């Protein structure tokens, strides 16, 4: 049986293998998505992000268990950083959700960032599509929300939950701008500890409610005690309803798809240019001239486009 058939038969091994292929950007996985694309788009995709150690994995485990009680099926993608020095990674989020491993209605996959910025975003997007074809109702993506690639990932989800804990206020102030804006819902987890109310107030002050029609709620949670999890789940569902009713969901998805198609075109054009080693040689010769100041980079680009007979592509862009 081929991978497509096995995926349609809800074979977890096929899902796992296809995600492996997506991670290594194997073109064969694109062929699978092409055939089954019509089955994508129905799942509620939720990003769980925030600084390390705030309880993101613990919270995800509890939210998923609440959804399982409702009979919903769930896919979970857990992203952790690759070590820039060795290329290896320790992916340890599953520790918090071990008893979900044997649940037939749950599929959990850990992914490493593997260095290349756009690569991870693409691989996660493909993994989400595979899980949608596998027909899960909800997809959770956990990332450690500090780097650009993590922010890029949550841009592609429907609802982003930013998980903080007492004392996170200072961290957040130190984080780059843009981190606060991506949260649709804020969680102050570990509310069993001192300072949760103060952090909640700090976060509320930082949130600019100016021109937003969705006011990001800030919820105090104790994930390890399963406290307020049902309430959080209600808010997550409310957010999806809000997106649908205001047509923001369609707008957001349309915008993301436009970016995706543009990226793909860009990549194809670049690839088709440098497909031929002839063009690459031509470019290298021009670069040498720029190096010796016999030419400037702008004229070299114009000449390259002329010589490569790609003027049309260049002008169209």
């Amino acid at each position: 049986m081929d991978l497509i058939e096995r995926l349609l038969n809800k074979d977890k091994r096929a899902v796992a293998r296809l995600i492996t292929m997506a991670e290594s950007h194997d073109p064969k996985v694109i062929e699978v998505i092409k055939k089954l694309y019509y089955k994508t788009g129905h799942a509620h995709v939720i990003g769980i992000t925030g600084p390390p150690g705030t309880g993101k994995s613990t919270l995800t485990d509890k939210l998923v268990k609440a959804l399982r009680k409702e009979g919903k099926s769930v896919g979970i993608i857990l992203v952790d950083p690759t070590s820039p020095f060795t290329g290896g990674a320790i992916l340890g989020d599953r520790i918090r959700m071990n008893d979900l491993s044997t649940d037939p209605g749950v599929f959990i996959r850990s992914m490493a960032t593997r260095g290349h910025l756009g690569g991870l975003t693409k691989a996660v997007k493909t993994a989400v599509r595979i899980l949608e074809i596998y027909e899960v109702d909800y997809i959770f993506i956990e990332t450690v929300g500090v780097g650009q690639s993590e922010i890029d990932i949550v841009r592609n989800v429907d609802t982003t939950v930013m998980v903080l804990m007492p004392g996170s206020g200072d961290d957040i102030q130190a984080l780059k701008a843009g981190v606060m804006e991506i949260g649709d819902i804020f969680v102050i987890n570990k509310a069993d500890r001192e300072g949760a109310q103060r952090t909640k107030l700090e976060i509320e002050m930082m949130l600019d409610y100016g021109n937003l029609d969705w006011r990001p709620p800030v919820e105090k949670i104790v994930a390890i005690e399963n406290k307020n999890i049902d309430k959080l789940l209600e808010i997550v569902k409310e957010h999806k309803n809000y997106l649908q009713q205001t047509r923001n969901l369609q707008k957001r998805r349309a915008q993301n798809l436009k970016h995706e198609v543009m990226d793909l075109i860009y990549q194809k054009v670049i690839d088709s240019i440098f497909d031929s080693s002839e063009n690459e040689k031509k470019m290298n010769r021009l670069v040498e001239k720029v190096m010796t100041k016999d030419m400037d980079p702008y004229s070299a680009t114009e000449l390259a486009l002329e010589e490569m007979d790609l003027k049309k592509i260049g002008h169209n862009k």
Partner: protein
Amino acid sequence: MMDRPIRVLVAKPGLDGHDRGAKVMARAFRDAGMEVIYTGLRQTPEQIVNAAIQEDVDVLAISILSGAHNTLLPRVVRLLKEEEIEDMLVIGGGVIPNEDIPRLKEQGISEIFTSGTPTSIAIEYIKENCRHVLR
């Protein structure tokens, strides 16, 4: 074909409560450029096998201290066979008496690294046996 890091799941089944050996193993594999899925303490063989399938790992490394290796390791191998997983390397590590090793290998464990074996030997073995990663 596509080059990618070797993926290893490090599991520590059994009821005894410390995983220092498993953690040392996990870090050594990471430092050798592998992606290590670390699942922590007290895993059942069912949990280990389900996790290994979903993570599509090349290697399943099981650390055992409790003396239950003669039941736990063969059980993992049996579950993998039931799921028709044939291309996964299963290795064991920890406190395992030498006289038990031949029988474990007969039952389908690829290799056993008893405690005290330098991690570099296990890493060498994995790299040697994971050329199919270029699949």
